[in-house]
């Protein structure tokens, strides 16, 4: 597979996604109009979106791996993970109220996040390389928001939509990866005091560090590397859960503490 869309189509689709993201409305999945779209086409649209955001003054802070658990792949009907970029404009502080009026249909998931202190470049990056290049890991909540109607999409469309990235919240307790077992971290997500998701970190490709390695190797295919100081979210351990104004969400982690957020209008 390769890029099949011409420059004009890529810009056109990018503008469509950018409009939906910045003005918070749903659009049909892109493959309805471009059924021959490839995964590479999806990344071409995403790269154009990243270029535009950076041109508008957003700062690239890192990347996210998506669709990395069996639960998520089954929920979304896809079979390969994806990646998306993260900017400073998407960050929200722990214990804050997150507005939903600028989102389409937000959902939350709990993830283990990594902060690196060495450059990582594919191909062939392993989980061991990732651990070696990790300053610390921390618990995080990702607020995903597909811009596609009814959260109905395919891999090509979701990649163009930057992996449904919308907001992210890091918090809890930072830990050196060598001080904990990254595979067996237990996670409980509660919404308004009720448990809505449970699992252990191995749900993400067997080990969240594997998801980061995969992400770096995909970055290589896109001609990118992961610079030291990057923030990386390794993918949802639990299924994504819909939220609305008034909801309180807390993600509790073994050894990493918790992250708590509320949602408002």
């Amino acid at each position, binding site marked *: 597979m390769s890029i099949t869309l011409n420059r004009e189509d890529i810009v056109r689709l990018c503008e469509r996604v950018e409009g939906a993201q910045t003005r918070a409305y749903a659009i049909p999945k892109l493959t309805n109009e471009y059924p021959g779209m490839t995964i590479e086409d999806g990344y071409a649209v995403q790269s154009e979106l990243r270029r535009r955001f950076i041109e508008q003054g957003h700062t690239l802070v890192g990347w996210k791996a998506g669709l990395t658990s069996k639960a998520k792949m089954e929920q979304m009907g896809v079979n390969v993970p994806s990646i998306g970029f993260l900017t400073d404009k998407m960050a929200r502080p722990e214990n804050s109220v997150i507005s939903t009026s600028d989102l389409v249909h937000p959902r939350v998931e709990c993830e283990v996040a990594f902060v690196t202190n060495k450059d990582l470049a594919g191909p062939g990056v392993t989980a061991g390389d990732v651990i070696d290049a990790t300053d610390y890991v921390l618990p995080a909540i990702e607020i995903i928001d597909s811009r596609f109607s009814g959260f109905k999409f395919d891999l090509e469309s979701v990649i163009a939509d930057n992996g449904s990235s919308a907001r992210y919240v890091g918090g809890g307790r930072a830990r050196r990866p060598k001080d904990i077992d990254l595979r*067996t971290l237990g996670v409980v997500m509660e919404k308004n005091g009720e*448990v809505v998701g449970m699992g252990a970190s191995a749900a993400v490709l067997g080990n969240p560090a594997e998801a980061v390695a995969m992400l770096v190797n995909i970055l290589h295919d896109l001609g990118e590397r992961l610079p030291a100081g990057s923030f990386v979210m390794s993918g949802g351990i639990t299924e994504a859960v819909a939220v609305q104004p008034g909801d309180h969400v807390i993600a509790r982690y073994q*050894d990493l503490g918790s992250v708590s957020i509320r949602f408002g209008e």
Partner: protein
Amino acid sequence: MNQEKIDQYGDELYQAFLDRKTIAPFTERDPDITLEDAYKIQLRFIQRRVDAGEAIVGKKIGVTSKPVQDFLGVFQPDFGQLTSNMVYQEGDVIDLGGLIQPKAEAELAFVLKEDLQGPGVTAMDVIRATDYVAPCFEIVDSRIRDWKILIQDTVADNASCGVYVIGSCKADPRDVDITMAGMVLEKNSELFSTGVGAAVQGSPANAVAWLANTLGELGIPFKAGEVILSGSQSNLVPVVDGDELVCTVGGIGSCSVRFAGRSAV
């Protein structure tokens, strides 16, 4: 239900256990059977095993997760008795030929160093009275045809207990967060499912406290040295000849088990 019928049903279960055959659900034959009747049938079934030379070595707690409680339409766990012939050591191969329709579950086992006398037992008492916790596998098995069980059927059938194996690594419950400890279950070296302690009644210690209080009401002793299987943290795993399972509990370690032979059904 009169004692004659209780004895008859208990004997029927014992015979099914000996012959490795299944019987029709009691709830089909006696729709009015109560939970109290069911526990009396269980007592008779276990008494037959004790009369044949087995010793009671502990208890198992079942129906501890919300999905299973919803499925069976109950809002509390159940329990069964562990006997000396159910015990396997880590490293042993479990002979499926001795079972009828087995499935495996990964759990946390508690071993008591003090008696727990309900009513009035809390999770704090459980931690105080616990010698150690360890990862374990319970191989559940049903003497009821096709696992067509209502709560009364499984309770009468000793909470569908088959055999169990306790891992050789252990931890003091003061040294590990048993509520947040993640559980990773692998089958034949592939990730099968993940879970967390909180999946069991909010915490495995809550399940053990429930058992202490329930036994207290029934006048059944709960003694130092007894083993308690606190309830499944995984999905049920079908097992056949040659399968190998490993469960790893974060902060404690793992338990592995292999299977050989063919079950009756």
